[in-house]
């Protein structure tokens, strides 16, 4: 159902000369979630976001925002979208309040919206200071405030945590959680700061070399990829047996073997296989992996089902 997605792309492709920056991407962002769009620098995140906002034109494929096709002529589709692309687009010679006023006038919003938005992002006290005197964190908050000014149902944020210190990141996280959970806004957020995304996102998409390697719930990704760690007193023998049976041994260290397993049924198979070879297994557990480890492994293997 088209209506169930805030963002949906079909075969979205964009080339720059001979380089394909975004390659047949099929994004499906459900409504009401915080979607972390992950990828290393140059993976195609910003290009994808610029395509979603109509800032760049796709070579092929289509974009649906809230179930409506985005085309050059259909700018109204963007009315329910707030965006922050890389660094906030602010006018440093204007005050924070005036910066919001510029967008308010363009969107024809009520005047009261400015005071409400400044309060929500904790900028009321600094509203009448020129933005050139704002700290990086304040600028980032003002950028978010600009994106939120029209009360959109979907916020598209490109690397919003860029350059923020830990407290700034925490503030940003709190604001995004507040918007998503209290105001039911869908947040599509790109980042290469993996632990940030891990702490906030419900859904994850991983892009590399312009291709979407994974898309789904965070737990799905962790469960899908989390390796199995087994404890035995004959770890070298166990590793040899498992490799001979076709499993990929990631580590064999100090009485513990770590094996890459695609599903939980493999755990039972591994256990039976080792017992059949007379190797005792004392413990079998999935080793919780950080998103960073998962991400690096996915990127190096070319996807959840890929091999190195």
């Amino acid at each position, binding site marked *: 159902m088209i209506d169930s997605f805030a963002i949906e792309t079909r075969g979205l492709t964009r080339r720059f000369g001979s380089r394909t920056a975004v390659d047949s991407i099929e994004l499906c962002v459900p409504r009401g979630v915080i979607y972390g769009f992950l990828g290393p620098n140059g993976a195609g995140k910003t290009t994808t976001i610029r395509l979603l906002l109509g*800032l760049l034109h796709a070579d092929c494929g289509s974009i649906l925002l809230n179930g409506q096709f985005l085309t050059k002529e259909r700018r109204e589709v963007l009315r329910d979208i707030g965006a922050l*692309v890389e660094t906030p*687009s602010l006018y440093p*010679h204007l005050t924070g309040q*005036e910066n919001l006023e510029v967008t308010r*006038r*363009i969107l024809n919003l009520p005047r009261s919206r400015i005071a409400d938005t400044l309060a929500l992002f904790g900028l009321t006290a600094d509203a009448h200071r020129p933005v050139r005197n704002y700290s990086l964190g304040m600028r980032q908050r003002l950028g978010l405030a600009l994106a939120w000014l029209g009360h959109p149902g979907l916020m598209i944020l490109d690397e919003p945590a860029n350059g923020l210190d830990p407290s700034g990141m925490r503030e940003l996280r709190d604001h995004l959680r507040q918007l998503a959970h209290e105001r039911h806004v869908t947040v599509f957020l790109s980042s290469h700061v993996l632990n940030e995304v891990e702490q906030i996102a419900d859904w994850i998409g991983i892009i590399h070399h312009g291709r979407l390697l994974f898309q789904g719930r965070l737990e799905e990704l962790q469960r899908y990829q989390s390796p199995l760690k087994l404890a035995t007193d004959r770890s070298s023998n166990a590793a040899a047996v498992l490799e001979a049976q076709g499993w990929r041994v990631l580590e064999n260290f100090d009485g513990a073997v770590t094996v890459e397993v695609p599903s939980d049924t493999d755990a039972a198979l591994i256990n039976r296989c080792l017992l059949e070879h007379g190797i005792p297994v004392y413990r079998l557990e999935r080793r919780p992996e950080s998103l960073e480890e998962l991400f690096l492994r996915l990127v190096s293997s070319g996807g959840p089902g890929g091999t190195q």
Partner: protein
Amino acid sequence: MNDLWRVASAEALKLKRTLALRLAIGAPMIIVLLVFGIYLQRGGPMAGANPLTGYAQLILTIWTIIVLPLYAALAAALLSSIEHQNESWKHLLALPVRRATYFVAKWIAGTGLLFLSSLVLVTGVLATDAILRVVISIWSSSSLPVAMIFRGAALSFCAAGLLFSIQMWISLRWRSFLPGIVVAVIALALMFIAIPRGAAFFGSLFPWSLPAMAMAPVNPYRPIAVGLGLMGGAAVGAIACWMLSRREFC
């Protein structure tokens, strides 16, 4: 139309505390004060039957030949750099407004600045004229050619439309400040070198000399200069807005 009105009103707000706005007032004021200072220093009538006519003509000549074309180039570059420098296009163009609206609004803002500068010039001439009459008593009976001043300022403002549109197009097309300024300097150099040696007709076709041609009281090609400035400016502006709205700004 409502969109255009709203975006133009946002453009007006963006001008607050900008060099473009300060120059719209400062540039004509400097010319007026410079000539005023020269006249004060001389302390008496210069050549000509009516010294105040000469006073007004000198100011208008400096304004239309040098300052107006330069200010138009500078205003275009400064207006565009508000968006280029702050990378604001990615914010503006992601809003639900037709792209061309932003560019038309820029043209309106620039035209407003040129109009303001012409207004300041006329006001400055009128104000300093009053002072000159008081300070230099023998001029008290001279009359300032008010109609000539208004006509000269209005016609040169209209004739500046084409050069402003060209400058605006260049400044919006390229992020750097340089192309617009380089074009303006080369065009002015060409105007000073080539136009005096050629026919006045060709001067009436060269965008950067149109304001001077429109201001000159005895010039059969004045209607061409004014018409070309106005209609050429509108045509170039329309084409530029259409082309810029098709461009990717990121």
